């Protein structure tokens, strides 16, 4: 691909330090925005760039900002969602670890555009070392006059506060994040009212992903038009893809939107093919929550067009033959992967992370895990496969937040595309037991307790 945008200076030694970052053109967007542009112009520039939310939903950022209730006399808040805990996604961690100033710079420009004077970064609790890095970056920015009162001699002042979470995946959902930030239990709120009207402390709030906010700096630097020139169609700009699984070169890659999936997996510039010369079996293209796609459908769509890494192309075909770009956690499986075990693993995660507020998700995720456990351990019955599809359908769309959908889609799509593997598990339970347990004594019943509370099922 061409020149990287977000990760432009990543290879420069000491780029975490303010001085080095500044000497490579850092904080120029802040100067440009604050000294030369009005807040509305910054907002328009972002709208023009066609930037879409990088956290998973792909909602246009300019539009989201325009929803912010500016008439209210309450203070406004900007919250940066750094609670990245989706299995397979590690792009924000990489960005914050290596280019913390990129985020701080984006936060200052975005806050200026939104008229925000207090900004929070809600960071995942497990990212303890990132807290130190970011706090150092914020302190440096403050010492150099880019944060605090009257930034660069203008009337604009801004404080950035860092708030580590306590390790709950659900707090990545924006309203649960706000609840957690307020010091309450991280339960998603019922929408409406949306955070743009009643968010943090009942004040108008914008919640954006790390990558989205980090992209605001380059957009101001290069201009919205130029950023929109990158990418394809409505998927503009660049995207960080965190590739993992059975590939030769896992890691975070910045790609220009519109790169063919085939090229991304097999080109030696990116993932460099499947490990040990094996074959591609399936891909989860956007973090564990999105539907899994088999090799033929990930490389080409059902209409036999090339599948591209854009929001639209990956959604092509709906849930029958498509998936989603999501947060860009690109998980690749080769032919040795067992889809039943993989689905069980994902479902275990979703059961563990469900907040337990609404009944379909609380009960359904646990039920799915138990049924999948049975199938995986050679105790499955034929009706269990249809039962799983049925449970997934009943969870989907009936919950408060998108977590229910995220839990249901992997199961539904795995059965849709890899039904024969589930059937194999039911048909040949003895072989499955040997594969699962080897020569060990096998467990005969589900005994998975809850890792947090320690409550066990009999």
């Amino acid at each position: 691909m061409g020149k990287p945008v977000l990760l432009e200076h990543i290879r420069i030694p000491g780029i975490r330090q303010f001085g080095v970052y500044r000497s490579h053109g850092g904080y120029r967007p802040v100067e440009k925005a604050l000294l030369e542009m009005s807040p509305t112009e910054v907002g328009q520039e972002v709208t023009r760039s066609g930037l879409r939310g990088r956290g998973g939903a792909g909602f246009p950022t300019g539009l989201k900002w325009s929803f912010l209730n500016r008439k209210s006399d309450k203070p406004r808040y900007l919250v940066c969602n750094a609670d990245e805990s989706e299995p397979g996604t590690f792009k924000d961690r990489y960005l914050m670890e290596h280019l913390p100033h990129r985020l701080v710079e984006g936060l200052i420009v975005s806050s200026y555009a939104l008229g925000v004077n207090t900004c929070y970064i809600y960071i995942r609790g497990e990212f303890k070392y990132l807290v130190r890095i970011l706090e150092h970056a914020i302190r440096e920015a403050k010492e150099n006059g880019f944060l605090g009162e009257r930034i660069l001699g203008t009337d604009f002042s801004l404080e950035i506060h860092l708030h580590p979470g306590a390790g709950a995946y659900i707090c990545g959902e924006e309203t649960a994040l706000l609840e957690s930030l307020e010091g309450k239990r991280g339960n998603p709120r019922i929408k409406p009212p949306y955070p743009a009207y009643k968010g943090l402390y009942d004040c108008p709030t914008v919640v954006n992903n790390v990558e989205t906010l980090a992209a605001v700096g380059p957009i101001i630097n290069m201009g919205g038009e130029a950023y929109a020139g990158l990418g394809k169609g409505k998927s503009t700009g660049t995207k960080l893809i965190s590739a993992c699984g059975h590939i030769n070169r896992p890691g975070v890659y910045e790609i220009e939107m519109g790169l063919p999936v085939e090229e991304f997996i097999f080109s030696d510039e990116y993932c460099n093919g499947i490990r040990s010369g094996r074959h591609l079996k399936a891909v989860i293209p956007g973090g564990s929550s999105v539907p899994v796609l088999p090799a033929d459908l990930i490389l080409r769509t059902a209409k036999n067009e090339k599948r591209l890494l854009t929001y639209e192309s990956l959604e092509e075909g709906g849930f029958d033959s498509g998936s989603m770009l999501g947060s860009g956690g690109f998980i690749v499986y080769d032919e040795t992967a067992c889809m039943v075990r993989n689905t069980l693993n994902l479902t275990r995660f979703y059961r563990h992370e469900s907040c337990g507020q609404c009944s379909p998700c609380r009960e359904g995720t646990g039920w799915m895990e138990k049924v999948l456990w049975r199938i995986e351990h050679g105790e499955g019955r034929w009706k269990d496969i249809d039962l799983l599809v049925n449970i997934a359908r009943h969870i989907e769309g009936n919950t408060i937040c998108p977590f229910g959908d995220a839990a249901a889609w992997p199961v539904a799509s795995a059965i849709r595309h890899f039904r024969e593997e589930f059937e194999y598990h039911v048909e040949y339970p003895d072989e499955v037991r040997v594969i699962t347990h080897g020569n060990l004594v096998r467990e005969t019943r589900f005994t998975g307790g809850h890792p947090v509370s320690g409550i066990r099922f009999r």
Partner: protein
Amino acid sequence: MVKVTIDNIQVEVEEGTTILQAARKIGGSVVPPAMCYYSSLAGSGGKCRTCLVKVAHSSARDPRPMPKLVASCCTPVQEGMVVLNQTSHEVVEARKAIVEFLLINHPLDCPVCDQAGECDLQDLSFGYGLEETRYEEDRREFPEIDIGPFIKLHMNRCILCYRCVYLCEQLTEKREHGVLYRGDTSEISTFIRQSIDNEFSGNVIDVCPVGALTDRTFRFKSRVWFLKPMDVHRECPACSGKAVAWMFGEEIQRITGRKDRYGEVEEFICNECRFEKKSRADWVFEGPRKIKRQSVISANHYEKMKKPSIINPIEGTIEQSDNSET
């Protein structure tokens, strides 16, 4: 005032009313069941998902349907909204699914549960439950705990409606219990074994839609359908003193708040009225409490069935039935 159509019945309600309240204004089978919503508790609702309805037209201005089923207890109505409840196959299917989800970890110990006969979950599963369970695994189990001298908590039966949490937050001075852990093992509990101790804590028994919070002074004494509910009142310095006394013969076996037809307490009563005043001399009796004729509680007694008017087709007269003695 806005006009809404629910199951082809039009009703006019004030702006900002929820769909559920609008449906309650119509009444009858149009009303979606509500397990977690409680009109007097702010913030309640939206959790159990039994009140899901389909919005076929969002409003007069925007006639598109809403993409998902919405929780009627927390969705405000809009002018020209068309809502489908009983008439939508999708809604009925979703509700059946929710009831199944609520029941898979429920112990189904109705024969020994004090709530049996006045339990919302029983009514709901009667209406929407499957005949047999598809759940073959073990159900989750929690130990029973006493929270305070008067209240027993059976976490097994709980459906996590959060009503008691909101009640303790809003009615009493300090928040004494909440939800621990998360997911399918989340649990209503007191903070660090501190028992609930305040004047209005007994109301959590009344707001509980299932038998998770029960009255220790009444436990295993009788079944509600053997009792005779009487409206009573007394002078109470703390609360309104309006309550229902559940009589077994001449003995008052328990006191509860007065519940309306949707199972919501009209006025919360204090613990002294509820747990300590169990003698006939403490109360002024107003008369028998009206109970829904369909309820198992009225199985034995009280309301004389209203005879319908009889039309004599030959003579063309309408014979009014005598309803004066009820």
